[in-house]
């Protein structure tokens, strides 16, 4: 386990700010305790300092996971966000997309969201903006990338994709081996 270098922190913040914008400050600076990011086996974990101190007592090869895994750094130092970060991104999300109950299932299986399944979308969403996907009952389902701006979404035909799928909570079942 080690703390992040400056470049890694930068990459990670850039990725996170795509979804939560400047609310990253609320993740770093929390009133209810000091939380920190640590890297272990190329995966990024977010944990409180108490858990960190406990984790130092476990040897590296035996340590599987600490706190919450936000994502991992690939071999070429790009940061991929995993679904396990959803609990922290959802409350701070700047741009949200609500999906109709009919196509919730489709999204949870890993498909993109089409215009026909789109319930609501926050105003002024830019194209290719990171969005958090919610069900109509405000349950966070995952995140994605807006394929069209809000204005465009109104005009486009019902069969075109409006949100690209990136991660959904169905992955907890589909790829439970790879999530830590």
């Amino acid at each position, binding site marked *: 386990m080690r703390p992040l270098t400056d470049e890694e922190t930068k990459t990670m913040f850039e990725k996170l*700010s795509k979804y939560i914008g400047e609310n990253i400050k609320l993740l*770093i600076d929390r009133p209810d305790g000091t939380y920190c990011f640590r890297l272990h086996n190329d995966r990024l974990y977010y944990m409180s300092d108490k858990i960190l101190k406990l984790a130092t007592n476990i040897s590296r090869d035996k340590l599987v996971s600490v706190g919450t895994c936000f994502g991992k750094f690939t071999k070429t130092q790009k940061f991929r966000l995993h679904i396990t970060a959803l609990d922290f991104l959802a409350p701070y999300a700047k741009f949200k997309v609500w999906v109709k109950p009919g196509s919730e299932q489709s999204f949870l299986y890993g498909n993109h969201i089409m215009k026909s399944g789109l319930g609501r979308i926050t105003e002024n969403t*830019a*194209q290719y903006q990171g969005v958090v996907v919610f069900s109509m009952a405000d349950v966070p389902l995952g995140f994605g990338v807006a394929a*069209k701006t809000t204005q*465009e979404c109104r*005009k486009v035909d019902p069969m075109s994709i409006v949100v690209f799928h990136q991660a959904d909570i169905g992955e907890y079942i589909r790829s439970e081996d790879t999530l830590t």
Partner: protein
Amino acid sequence: MASCSVEDVLAKAERDEAEKLKGITVNKELDLEFDPGNLLAFDKNRIDTREFKDGKREDFLRSLARDNTQLLINEIWKLPTERVEEVIVAKLPEPTTLLPREKPAPKPKPPTKWEQFAKLKGIQKKKKTNLVWDEVHKEWKRRWGYKRAKDDTKEWLIEVPEKADPNEDQFAKKNKAKKERVARNEYNRLKNIARAQKIKVPGMGLAPTPKQSKAELAQAVNIAKISTASVGKFQDNLPKEKKPKNTGKRRKFQPLIGDFSSEKQKQLDLLKVMDSKKPRLDITKAVNKQMREEDMEARQKNKKDFGKKGQRGKMSGKGKGKAGGKGKGQGPKGKGRKPQMKQGKR
């Protein structure tokens, strides 16, 4: 006198003969086992402990040794002889007794890097033919070695690739690459041997080779300099010696449980810097404004001719998508784009 002398002589001769024979013949209860190859004789006869009483012991042992040696030499005389430089030599057969090992049994060699990898992946060795059909020369050639089938360095024509420098010598490049591969292979072979024998190999450039480049010599000098008890702190520099570029560890990380507040502060500062570098988000506004304008135009046009309404609406959607796509290609993040809306306009 004469008669008794003759008798005496004869008797003496007989006695001598008997003694000689007695010398050669040895009576033993059990026959000895011989291994003439090792000049070895096993005597399994029982020894009478009465012979070992004081006084008689030495004599007994001497006579026993003499008898057994006599028998062994009798055995040797039975072997085929040959004459080597005026000396009669007996030809010893192959030794039959198995002698135990002089030195301990050799330990199995540790597997090489490739062998470890192959075992891990389950790669089996495939038998390959020695000769390969060379289509170019229309004959059977070796798979590797002298005059092999596909010799990279022997091509008579090499096309210069598009991205390469036109003045570069492609032939020399191939030869150099071949030499580097050979050198690397040799180095890896030696490393395998060193790993097997647990010898420490000096790093690249430290084991002196006949031709060392300037860089290698400089590296050797630097390493020699820090190989003192105080890690080179009190070594004087040579008049024109340059300091080595990457000293010490290559990567240094912050301690795991450093000062949390300073870490937090650093991250917040980083965020502030990132925020200031981002362009102000008028992209969406510009896009939306553009689209509203187009909508208005479209509505006006529709008032003029009804038939083309659907097409207009569709085209505007398509144009937006193209412009947006081009814009995304430019900047890494959505916010970094410049508004190039005019491109998509018909």
